């Protein structure tokens, strides 16, 4: 674990140089620990795949004093797989909303049903949230369906779209431009300031996608 200066009032801790569950797990442990401590003078704590970014009040910390504090914490690996509550996200995998299902299936010479089964069998971990509010980057998508981003992003990806890019997946929390492969759509609000924690997902969450049919999707408020 080493740190570098990010800006005059922030530092970034590096845990490794590869996208790996073990490294991300250590990042998320420190993130959760610091977040729960609620230290005065720490104003932003943002995890990514291999890094943890911490912004601080210049009048309370310096880069060195903050890193000394971090080093003094015992970062323990929580035993996640047993105890974790899995957050389920219902998804309608119809071809009218999952507009890339067919392409992804053909690229891997499997059927659309197999794509859906592989996508819904896995449990995903939220590694980081970015791009826009509530956009959770989740890993890992099975190599059997992993598909690169579109060469030309679409100017509009509908809100709720469930999509993959290489070995990552995400749900678009709002209408935005985007280049990920769209497999389906969820009626769940991913980002809304009326939600308890504003974002449906937070870093470290375990997620499973659950297939629903069109009627259920519509009855849950989904839009076509």
């Amino acid at each position, binding site marked *: 674990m080493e740190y570098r200066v990010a800006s005059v009032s922030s530092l970034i801790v590096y845990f490794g140089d590869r996208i790996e569950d073990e490294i991300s797990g250590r990042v998320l442990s420190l993130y959760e620990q610091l977040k729960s401590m609620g230290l005065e003078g720490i104003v*932003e704590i943002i995890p990514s795949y291999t890094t943890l970014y911490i912004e601080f009040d210049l009048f309370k910390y310096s880069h060195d004093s903050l890193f000394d504090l971090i080093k003094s914490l015992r970062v323990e690996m929580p035993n996640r797989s047993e105890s974790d509550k899995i957050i389920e996200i219902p998804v309608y995998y119809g071809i009218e909303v999952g507009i890339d299902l067919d392409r992804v299936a053909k690229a891997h010479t499997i059927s659309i049903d197999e794509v859906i089964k592989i996508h819904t069998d896995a449990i995903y971990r939220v590694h980081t949230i970015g791009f826009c509010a*509530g956009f959770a980057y989740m890993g890992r998508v099975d190599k059997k369906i992993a598909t690169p981003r579109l060469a030309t992003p679409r100017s509009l990806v509908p809100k709720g779209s469930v999509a993959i890019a290489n070995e990552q997946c995400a749900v678009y929390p709002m209408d935005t431009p985007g280049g990920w492969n769209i497999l389906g759509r969820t009626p769940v609000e991913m980002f809304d300031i009326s939600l308890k924690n504003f974002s449906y997902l937070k870093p470290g969450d375990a997620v499973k996608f659950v297939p629903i049919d069109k009627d259920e999707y519509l009855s849950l408020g989904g839009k076509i």
Partner: protein
Amino acid sequence: MSGLLVEKPGILSLIEDAGRIGYGDIGVCQSGTADRYSAVWANRLLFNDPDSAVLEMLIGNVSLISQVDTAIALTGAESTLKINGQERSRWRSHRIKKGDRIDISAAKKGLRSYLSVAGGFGTQEMLGSRSVTPKDKLGDRIAEGDLLPCSSCTDHIPSAVPQRYIPDFLDVLTLRVAAGYQYDEFSSDAIELFFDSPYEVTTATDRMGCRLQGEAVRFDGEIISEPISYGAVQIPSDGQPIVLLNERQTIGGYPKIGSVIPMDCYRLAQARPGTTVAFQEIPVVEAAKITKDLYMFMQNRTIC
């Protein structure tokens, strides 16, 4: 609540305060006033909390009709302020009567002007801030017919910012950089080139970041997406630096040389396309001292 009625909204006028701090982990960008120095003065002139919500206007061209007795101040870019058709000074507070018309012309120098009202604009707080961030669907730009809420104030004593604190909008800007992030992974030639070459502000400049043009800075290799600080100097694959500002995304995958200190980010947010900028490396300890002095000044300074 009464307020100021928008008759002409201008190109991009947003209610902003010090920004939305502490939600970066759920992808919410900080946003906030792009030239906080000017915004703080606009508030101090009205004896508001220094980071109260103000109206940030890109270029200007805004007209408002007051539906309340209040007081206002205009700082930032060099627009002309007119109250009921009569020109009034910027960097100074003015009493306003119900029915008064406020016109802010297109700026001749600088990019963003700041209009404050007594007590600050009372728009809806979202996640602890009134800053509007269209990209996160947290509020939207003002539109014709909007009422910008503010309370009544009839006992304001007008005040002015001393001339020495009013910024100039220079054609050549020096941006002080605290080295950081991938600094050590750039070649010494690339670092030297970056700090020795002039860059020009391009038209691809907004609240998210300022894209510059000049000598291309090389970086070999790739980095894994990581969180981005305010002022971070990002080097994309074409080698043309981008200084990331208030509406930057929370994470990004380009290498960064370090971060421009806040005071110089405020100045950069006022720099028009064509402005020449030069980067200057300063030690982190010195950057911290300059920034602490600035924050003390902005928070505590009383009006002379």
